[in-house]
């Protein structure tokens, strides 16, 4: 009878931890709050510094994870309650009603085509709309649709039910209720990842007030071949192709008033997105406003140099003071200070501005920490037990990996995820 | 009895270059045939006017000669063939002693050979190579349609005797050639159809050293050498590669960056 491990969070860290634990022979229950695993990485177009296509390398892992004999996916689910102590933890998981029988659903999408309700698409960072019954993204795992009860007419008002009519598999079950299941777990892995800070918290940067100011993850979707713009780099205000592009780094991070820490990955993804922008629009001119260019990983410095030399990216060390609409509601005017004591204020116009906001521990992680009885560090990331145990939480038998434990890029998250698997094995072997 | 040429070769091979064996063409009862000798007095009446590819013989007998240095009469194309064989570890060039033979003008003509002079001439008068191949020029002028018509007519004459593969010095899987099977060769079996010839063309593209043996061996007189020359030209254009130099690796064995696929671990 294999020991059970509950992994919370179905992003790349959670997927990797699950795969390694499953390969080690543990029975893994992977809990993901959205309808599909994949997490943030699924939203990325390419990955730095190799510009590998993100989905190309992630999708096989997702499929492997779902298909693994030792992995049970609980998507669209959340951990409700945890009782007991290591190695006898009782984990209550709420499988939210998706009003679809996923054993019957074939993911054919007929229902989606017919659904009359359109709502902003979270996966596409609200740049486009999805239906009330939806597949979060084409490569979703499991490839099963979900009805979002908040917006579905039938659920809300009992009027509609088109999806049920068109579904030949008979998979639609409006009467479905949330389901509670309990798992006797020996250990728990937390990999809840990150959310972007809402940049409108800093009005001076014009997010929300200027149409042509987007957050970096939105820009990532704009660049993506499978994104809302069909892989065409256009700006929101008028759908025209931007010729002058700017990035502002450290929006709300490395900031005494907001978030003090450095999000670790923004310098690199901004550089990547500038390179990709050039590949979309050969004559685009990109400027990156930054504080320190933190290119500390393998091939990162070379990547930045390549951006500068071969892709005409201009790096300006300055923290812009303010952003306002340029002409009417099109384009933006960025005001920043030039270098040196005698540095004066200059204003420069750009067609499109990308903000790189602080990356925060995901919204869910604080309540989860409370529920699990875990300490947070002063930046609200899950605190590590001590120097010797960087992937142990402050509570025995509960491990942490990926961005939930602090800002880090994909390879560091993956390494930590595997590291967590080792720690679980040590603990369950009776080790300290 | 040993003729003067035989004596000269014997001296070169055994006395001056310390060979243990000498591979030559010699005359016996009115026939000229390859022979392998280990002593000067056995050399016999050597005849080199027969344009036979001794390297092909060498390739076949090499596995049976476990040690000793072998002297072989090498034309320029033999040298190249040896290089290609050495690359694939079929022969150990340290065990081969080359006795350079310059081709006659008439032989050069027949092969439309651009590069006929061996690195070191021991026998024969060196003659300059000839530029270009008349048929290639004619084909170049033809329309695509006529070119196809031409080759289809030629290939229709093929009766699949495999002379081209058997006499080829760099065609090394001759015991059991894939072209003898149906896998890539369309019905009907004789003539074997276009894929037969295109597949062989592809197999030869990074090996052929333009010796012309295939063409001479072809009873149907298909201008096989011309096709080889055309593709050799293409190979040069696309990858700046010409077979026959032991140092340069076939582009088919390298990555786009050009380094060997095996990376550093090729001390195998």
């Amino acid at each position, binding site marked *: 009878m294999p020991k059970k491990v509950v992994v919370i969070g179905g992003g790349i860290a959670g997927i990797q931890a699950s795969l390694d634990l499953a390969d080690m022979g543990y029975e893994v229950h992977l809990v993901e709050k959205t309808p599909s695993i994949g997490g943030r990485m699924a939203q990325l*177009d390419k990955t730095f510094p*190799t*510009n*590998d*296509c*993100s*989905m*190309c*390398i992630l*999708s*096989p892992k997702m499929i492997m994870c779902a298909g693994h004999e030792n992995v049970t996916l609980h998507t669209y689910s959340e951990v409700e309650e945890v009782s007991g102590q290591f190695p006898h933890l009782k984990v209550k998981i709420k499988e939210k009603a998706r009003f679809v029988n996923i054993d019957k659903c074939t993911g054919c*999408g007929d229902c989606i085509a017919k659904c009359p309700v359109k709502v902003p698409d979270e996966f596409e960072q609200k740049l486009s709309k999805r239906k009330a019954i939806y597949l979060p993204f*084409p*490569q979703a795992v499991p490839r099963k649709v979900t009805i979002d009860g908040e917006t579905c007419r039938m659920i809300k008002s009992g009027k509609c039910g088109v999806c049920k009519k068109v579904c030949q598999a008979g998979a639609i079950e409006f009467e479905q209720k949330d389901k509670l299941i309990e798992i006797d777990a020996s250990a728990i892995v937390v990999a809840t990842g990150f959310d972007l800070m809402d940049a409108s918290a800093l009005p001076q940067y014009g997010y929300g007030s200027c149409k042509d100011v987007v957050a970096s993850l939105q820009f990532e979707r704009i660049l*993506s*071949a*499978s994104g809302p713009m*069909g*892989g065409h780099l256009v700006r929101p205000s008028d759908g025209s192709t931007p010729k002058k592009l700017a990035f502002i780094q450290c929006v709300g991070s490395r900031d005494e008033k907001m978030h003090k820490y450095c999000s670790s990955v923004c310098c690199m993804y901004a550089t990547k997105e500038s390179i990709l922008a050039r590949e979309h629009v050969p004559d685009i001119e990109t400027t990156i406003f930054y504080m320190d260019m933190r290119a500390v990983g393998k091939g990162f410095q070379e990547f930045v140099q390549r951006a500068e030399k071969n892709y005409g990216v201009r790096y300006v060390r300055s923290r812009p003071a303010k952003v306002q609409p340029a002409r009417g509601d099109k384009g933006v005017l960025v005001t920043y200070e030039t270098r040196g004591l005698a540095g004066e204020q200059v204003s420069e116009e750009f067609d499109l501005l990308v903000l790189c906001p602080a990356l925060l521990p995901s919204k869910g992680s604080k309540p989860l920490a409370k529920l699990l009885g875990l300490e947070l560090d002063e930046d609200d990331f899950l605190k590590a037990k001590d120097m010797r145990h960087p992937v142990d939480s402050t509570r025995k038998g509960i491990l942490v990996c990926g961005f939930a434990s602090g800002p880090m890029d994909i390879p560091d998250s993956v390494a930590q995820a595997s590291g967590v698997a080792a720690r679980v094995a040590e603990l369950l072997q009776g080790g300290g | 009895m040993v003729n003067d040429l035989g004596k000269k070769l014997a001296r070169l091979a055994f006395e001056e270059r310390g060979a243990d064996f000498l591979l030559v063409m010699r005359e016996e009862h009115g026939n000229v045939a390859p022979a392998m000798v280990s002593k000067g007095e056995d050399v016999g009446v050597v005849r080199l006017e027969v344009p036979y590819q001794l390297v092909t013989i060498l390739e076949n007998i090499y596995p049976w000669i476990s040690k000793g240095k072998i002297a072989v009469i090498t034309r320029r194309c033999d040298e190249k063939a040896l290089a290609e064989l050495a690359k694939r570890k079929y022969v150990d060039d340290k065990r081969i002693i080359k006795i350079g033979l310059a081709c006659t003008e008439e032989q050069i003509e027949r092969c439309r050979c651009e590069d006929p002079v061996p690195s070191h001439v021991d026998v024969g008068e060196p003659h300059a190579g000839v530029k270009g191949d008349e048929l290639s020029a004619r084909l170049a002028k*033809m329309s*695509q*349609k*006529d*070119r*196809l*018509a*031409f*080759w*289809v007519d030629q290939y*229709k004459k093929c009766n699949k005797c495999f002379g081209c593969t058997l006499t080829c010095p760099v065609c090394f899987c001759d015991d059991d050639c*894939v072209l003898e099977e149906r*896998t*890539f*060769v*369309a019905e*009907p079996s004789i*003539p074997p*159809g*276009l*894929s037969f*010839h*295109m*597949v062989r*063309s*592809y197999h030869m*593209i*990074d090996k052929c050293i333009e010796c012309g043996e295939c063409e001479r061996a072809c009873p149907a007189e298909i201008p096989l050498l011309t*096709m080889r020359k*055309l*593709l050799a030209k*293409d*190979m040069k254009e*696309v*990858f700046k590669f010409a077979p026959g130099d032991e140092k340069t690796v076939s*582009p*088919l064995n*390298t*990555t*786009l960056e050009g380094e060997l*696929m095996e990376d550093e671990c090729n001390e195998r």
Partner: protein
Amino acid sequence: MAEFNPTILAFCCNWCSYAGADLAGVGRLQMPPNIHVIRVMCSASVKPEYVLKAISGGVDGVLVLGCHIGDCHYMTGNHRTAKRMPLVQKVLKEVGIDERRLRLDWVSASEGEKFQKVVTEFVGEIKNLGPNPMRGVKW
């Protein structure tokens, strides 16, 4: 006579191009129905012999699709493909078959549109070239 309706063979690598083709399907991206996909693990496993056999058998065009250089699931597999196919084109050219009947291209798992574009272009090109002349040849 009826409009020429080419028969086209496509080799797609399992990790990128086949996935890209799937994505095109999921996106309901419409394209001409002339393409017939054979799935291989890597574009580097496509033997030039397949291409030559198909063309001499009368197939009007062959498409070889792999991961972008750098994305290959097997590190440098697609480098090999990139080296082989140009030579196969030469073999075709020299016997008098238009080398454009073979096309090598890269399609990633997220490039459904690219797959559609490549297929549509290629079918168009083959239509312009007309039927494979080998169709008529009797041996």
